[in-house]
């Protein structure tokens, strides 16, 4: 009789008596149903392969030690139960990941910090920049030009002097007057430019 027609119970007996090919037949016969059963529970191919392998290792160990298996003709339900128990054990173990809750003494956020500025800081910063740009608009044109080139365009005084066609000292002087005038406007209008 071809191996594919032999009932499970007989194949198990043949395997226990030393016929390794009987195990190959059993695996071939039930691999699809068992694998799909495992996959339906875990939803991951690699994990399903691991469980499939562990299930048959358990089957091999049990049959070779000649104990526990006495369910004649019920090979598939038996291996499915083994797989199911392995899956339940796995998820039970993985559920026990320690959870950290905040207490009065310790907060996890004292260790983990968010480096991004908060929405409040961003809004205040935008407001300051907006106020400052309005004050700068009040400055005389030559002073405003030097200040913008220096701070907003990040140019050196030498470059500013070359572009504006003035001496370095004139640029430095205009910058000094620009800063003094800004202070005056801020004090006069009692503007606060700090967060």
């Amino acid at each position, binding site marked *: 009789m071809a191996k594919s027609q032999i009932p499970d119970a007989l194949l198990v007996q043949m395997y226990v008596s030393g016929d*390794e090919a009987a*195990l*190959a037949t059993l*695996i071939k016969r039930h*691999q*699809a149903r068992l*694998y*799909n059963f495992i*996959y339906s529970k875990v939803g991951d*191919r690699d994990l*399903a*392969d691991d469980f*499939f*392998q562990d299930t*048959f*290792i358990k089957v*091999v*160990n049990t049959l*070779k*030690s*000649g*104990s526990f298996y006495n369910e004649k003709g019920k090979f598939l339900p038996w291996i499915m139960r083994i797989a199911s128990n392995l899956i339940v054990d796995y998820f039970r173990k993985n559920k026990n990941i320690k959870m950290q809750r905040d207490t009065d003494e310790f907060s996890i956020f004292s260790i983990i910090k968010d480096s991004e500025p908060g929405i409040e800081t961003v809004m205040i910063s935008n407001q300051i920049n907006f106020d400052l740009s309005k004050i700068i608009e009040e400055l005389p044109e030559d002073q405003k030009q030097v200040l913008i080139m220096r701070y907003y365009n990040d140019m050196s005084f030498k470059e500013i002097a070359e572009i504006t066609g003035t001496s370095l000292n004139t640029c430095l002087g205009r910058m000094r007057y620009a800063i003094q005038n800004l202070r005056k406007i801020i004090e006069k209008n009692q503007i606060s430019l700090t967060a």
Partner: protein
Amino acid sequence: MAKLYSDRKLATKKLLPKKETIQFILQYSKALRVVKVGNLNFETIAN
């Protein structure tokens, strides 16, 4: 008569374990030897 627009359910492909997995189980089975001494089982795996 109203038309039915529901899609025909696609047949799901049967999944099978990797060939390596089955090969490993068969090799493991060949290599494993269990010796019973009294109440004890001694397992040996041949390289």
